[in-house]
């Protein structure tokens, strides 16, 4: 029997699909060398966040940088100034979901920073020789790769759709419906009249 006779046909298609997902919230401490004559830290702000990500084994590694701006006072709180330092980081983000049937080499990583690096605390050490700042950030990563997907497809006849206008097709169908050849056949009646 030709397999087009089956009511539903299945095809395998190659598709790009999400084949891995992960999320990580990170809290890290940085130690920064303070400028001379620092008296007090007044504020801290992180800006210019840049990052890149890549797949490493069954995890995603995000590498990036941001600038730490520290607003501080000197000379017994008579003057203020801002210092900037660029910080590098690398975070490994484990995948909660990973499909091993993905074709290696076709995988792209999409990374979204759901919480941009944010300074939540800054402290000057008692000897004023180091500033420690606490930073929080969060990433969501998705792996997008080629994978086989099995789909149920309509029979071949409908493949002619693109040759005709949709309206034509529908009106044709409608005409067929109105075909009155079997008008005298009442399905209920026929069924009751049938004998073994």
């Amino acid at each position: 029997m030709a397999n087009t006779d089956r009511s539903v046909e299945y095809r395998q298609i190659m598709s790009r699909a999400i084949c891995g997902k992960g999320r990580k919230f990170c809290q890290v401490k940085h130690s920064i060398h303070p400028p001379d004559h620092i008296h007090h830290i007044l504020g801290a702000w992180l800006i210019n966040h840049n990052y890149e990500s890549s797949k490493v084994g069954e995890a995603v590694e995000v590498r990036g940088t941001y600038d730490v701006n520290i607003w501080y006072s000197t000379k017994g709180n008579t003057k203020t100034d801002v210092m900037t330092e660029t910080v590098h980081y690398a975070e490994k983000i484990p995948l909660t979901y990973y499909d091993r049937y993905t074709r290696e080499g076709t995988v792209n990583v999409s990374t979204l920073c759901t919480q941009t690096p944010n300074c939540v605390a800054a402290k000057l050490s008692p000897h004023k020789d180091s500033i420690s700042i606490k930073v929080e950030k969060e990433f969501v990563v998705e792996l997008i790769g080629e994978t086989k997907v099995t789909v149920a497809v309509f029979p071949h006849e409908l493949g002619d759709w693109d040759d005709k206008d949709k309206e034509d097709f529908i009106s044709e169908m409608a005409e067929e419906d109105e075909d009155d050849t079997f008008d005298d056949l009442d399905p209920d009646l026929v069924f009751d009249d049938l004998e073994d």
Partner: protein
Amino acid sequence: MGAVTLPLDAKESEQEELQGLREQLVSVDHRFAPSILLETTDDQIHISGAIRTSSTFYTLNNEKQVEKLKSAKQHNDILQLHGIQVVGSSRQFLREYVFSIFQTKVLSVYRSKETSVWLSQSKKKQKVKKKTYVRVTDPDNDREIRRVQKIAVRALYATGLDYGMVTCGVGTSKKISIVQVDPSPKLNEDLERLFIKAVSDYRKRLRKSSTSVKTIMLGADPEFIMVTPKGSLIVASKYFPIQGKIGCDAAWLGDNRSHKPIVELRPDPTTDPLRLSVRVYQCLLHAAKKVQHVQCKWLAGALPYPKYPIGGHVHFSGIEPSFQLLRALDNYLALPLVVCEDPRGKDRRPKYGFLGDYRMQEHGGFEYRTPPSWLITPTLTKGVLVLSKIIAGNFEQLMYNPLSDAGIQKAYYDGNKAVLKEWIPDLWQDIKRLDDYEAYQNVVDEFFSFIQQGKTWDESLDLRKAWRLPPYHAKKR
């Protein structure tokens, strides 16, 4: 402003009704009434043939509970007892949220305007006085709000209230604390409207007939773990898929997140609790066949292995998770289970197994998550499922609420069986009164007499023995 008494009937048009409610419920300084009493006549209680004997339906925000919350110490003690973090001496948050809640419905969410700049404390103090909040229009799309919101509802439930305004703070490391649960909040015009509408809707629901027992669907996802003869945890995902009728819970073991140690049974839901018990047995049998070659013990209960608390969640659909239903489940199901639990199980609380733990489900219903895994014996399994069904169908008629008392709550969390056991005869008697009791008499009586006798389960025993599953089944000759 004290408690406000409202008639259960409202004969005016909707607009007049809302206007009337506003006048009665909102004070001149825009504060909402701290508690509401709905006045009923006997005929109204008999609506639709079912007698609603439980008085808790006609009181919103019990005055006693409202009184307790006035003391900051009591307010915090109650929340901490239920395992909810409260704000310490310093109120330092990255963000704050304010939720208006009526029972399980969150009416509105406001979030404090956040700054991404960290400022030294001395600078901050001047700012802290005036916090501005912005209304969040699509709170369900925000992961953090969903998390905080759950805790806010839980806090409201823990304080024994039905409605109020809950202020929460999110600190560093995503730590969530409750700042305040306010039964009589000061409202703006929008919020007034939302609260009034909620009260009016509640009143309407009370006037209507109660849910029919027959249409309530019941499901469950009890869990168990497998340990080696030496007592170490077996990675269940080696033998069972993650999804499926016998699957694995999302919790993982060690560093590899695909190592899932907890087996979860997911029998198809049904309206008949006994049929559901049979389906649980079938799942167990199937699982037993799949791992018959593995030397292991199957453990259920609350905390059979340190750091891996397991649960026996019961799913309901065709019924809304009102606070009254959750309280009935806590009193008539969770409380008896603590009386007969393995004493080791108390460490599961209050992180898990806290009172009123529920979660909405994609199927439109909800799951009640407080009970531990009752797969221990068939008696417990049948008892829990049958009682769940009876309680859900008849909670409006159940009379007792021992867990409204702080002492009993403490006994619940501490696993103080002696105190809780005194309530068993009353709870049992109350269930016996119900029409639905008759059909399940044997199961209910077996369950309660097991508890009444003071027996407790042993979480270190292989549950397959009690279920007579291979290798403990009677061999055919």
